[in-house]
């Protein structure tokens, strides 16, 4: 049981692919100008992560070391193509917006990274959970960053949710500031970098605080150096 809890913790927080490993920045920065795009790409990435992790772990004993990377890439690329086709047939409106970013999931190092670092050494159930948690962790960062940029950039939240949720989505859309002129910086790529930087800083700050409270302060008052990147 402890193993599984550790996987969840690693995926969501301690080894978050976007905040700690800083992997997958290309799609992360490109699509987070609103929440709906972030959710769409997050779901697609999570699906590919779980599928590739499960497949790799099932065949892990048959894939020889020399050709493992080409096989991983082949599997990931196939899953991404399948996701793209499914999106094109069932979420066509969303595909029109995210379309050019979906193939970029192949280049998301987080997926190859998990296949190589985790799935190729562990059983399929743990790998599936690892893929799911890494995917959710990544998606949460996408959504948080998307929300920040949408709120500051255009003054709305969940705009165009109907692209994912159908007509129900229209009721979700909130205009937070009426007659908001918009802040262009937040929508353009620099806003993505600044936003991501702030989120990483916030996470490190929280980790630092947590480490300080859990460690008893030494009697002589000397402060220990705390490692932030616990992989």
């Amino acid at each position, binding site marked *: 049981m402890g193993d599984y809890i550790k996987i969840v913790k690693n995926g969501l927080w301690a080894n978050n692919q976007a905040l700690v490993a800083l992997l997958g920045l290309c799609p992360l920065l490109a699509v987070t*100008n609103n929440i709906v795009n972030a959710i769409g790409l997050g779901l697609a990435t999570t699906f590919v992560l779980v599928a590739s992790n499960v497949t790799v772990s099932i065949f892990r004993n*048959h*894939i*020889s070391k*020399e*050709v493992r990377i*080409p*096989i991983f890439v*082949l*599997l990931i*690329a*196939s899953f991404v*193509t*399948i996701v793209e*086709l*499914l999106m*094109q*047939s*069932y979420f*066509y409106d969303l595909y*029109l917006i995210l379309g050019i970013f979906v193939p970029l999931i192949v280049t998301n190092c987080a997926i190859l990274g998990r296949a190589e670092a985790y799935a190729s050494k562990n059983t399929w159930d743990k790998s599936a959970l690892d893929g799911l948690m890494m995917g959710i962790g990544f998606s949460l960062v996408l959504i948080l960053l998307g929300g920040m940029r949408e709120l500051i*950039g*255009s003054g709305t939240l969940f705009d*165009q949710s109907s692209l994912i949720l159908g007509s129900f989505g229209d009721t979700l859309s909130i205009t937070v500031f009426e007659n908001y*002129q*918009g802040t*262009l910086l937040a*929508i*353009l790529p620099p806003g993505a970098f600044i936003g991501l930087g702030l989120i990483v800083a916030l996470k490190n700050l929280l980790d630092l605080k947590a480490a300080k409270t859990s460690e008893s302060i030494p009697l002589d008052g000397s402060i220990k150096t705390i490692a932030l990147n616990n992989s």
Partner: protein
Amino acid sequence: MISNPILKAGALLLIFTAISIFFVALTQDTTKEKIKYNEDQLLIKRLAELVSGYDNKILEDKFSKEIELHGLQQKIGIYPAKQQGKTFAYLIEHTYPNGYNGGIRLLTGFDVKRQLLGVRVITHKETPGLGDKIETRKADWIKQFSGLSLSNPHQNNWKVKRDGGVFDSFTGATITPRAIVSAAYQVLVYFTEHEIN
């Protein structure tokens, strides 16, 4: 079992490639029709925003033409809208190359008297939050072209206000509206001077 490690690796790659291709091909085959349907629906929706009352199968009656438009040799798509076999309007799918950030694909409709039914953007790469007000879901700006022609407004006034014309441009973006105005104008000029068929 194969003992040569190179052959073994090759066989392994072959097997995985075959499996992957099988699943991708299977998905492609099952989604093919649905995707085509989605694409057609989108186009019909865009066309219907500009023209109504046609009774022909407008997608099937489409024809293409290689012409020089907007200073660019391009293949344009022409959708004729017909009523009882008689064409009363044309919708032109064309590319204007000089947007703020590359080409803008447009659908421009006009009736047989060369009066504009309207202009719609199909795809563009204009700045989000500024130039994208040419989309109908962001603003109504692009709807103003409906009913205009080469004599209304006067030819000299087919410009944005900043250039001495009659069209508003929106805050923070001049190049994008300028591009749309000039694209619509040039389409009208071209098809006044040239036969459409």
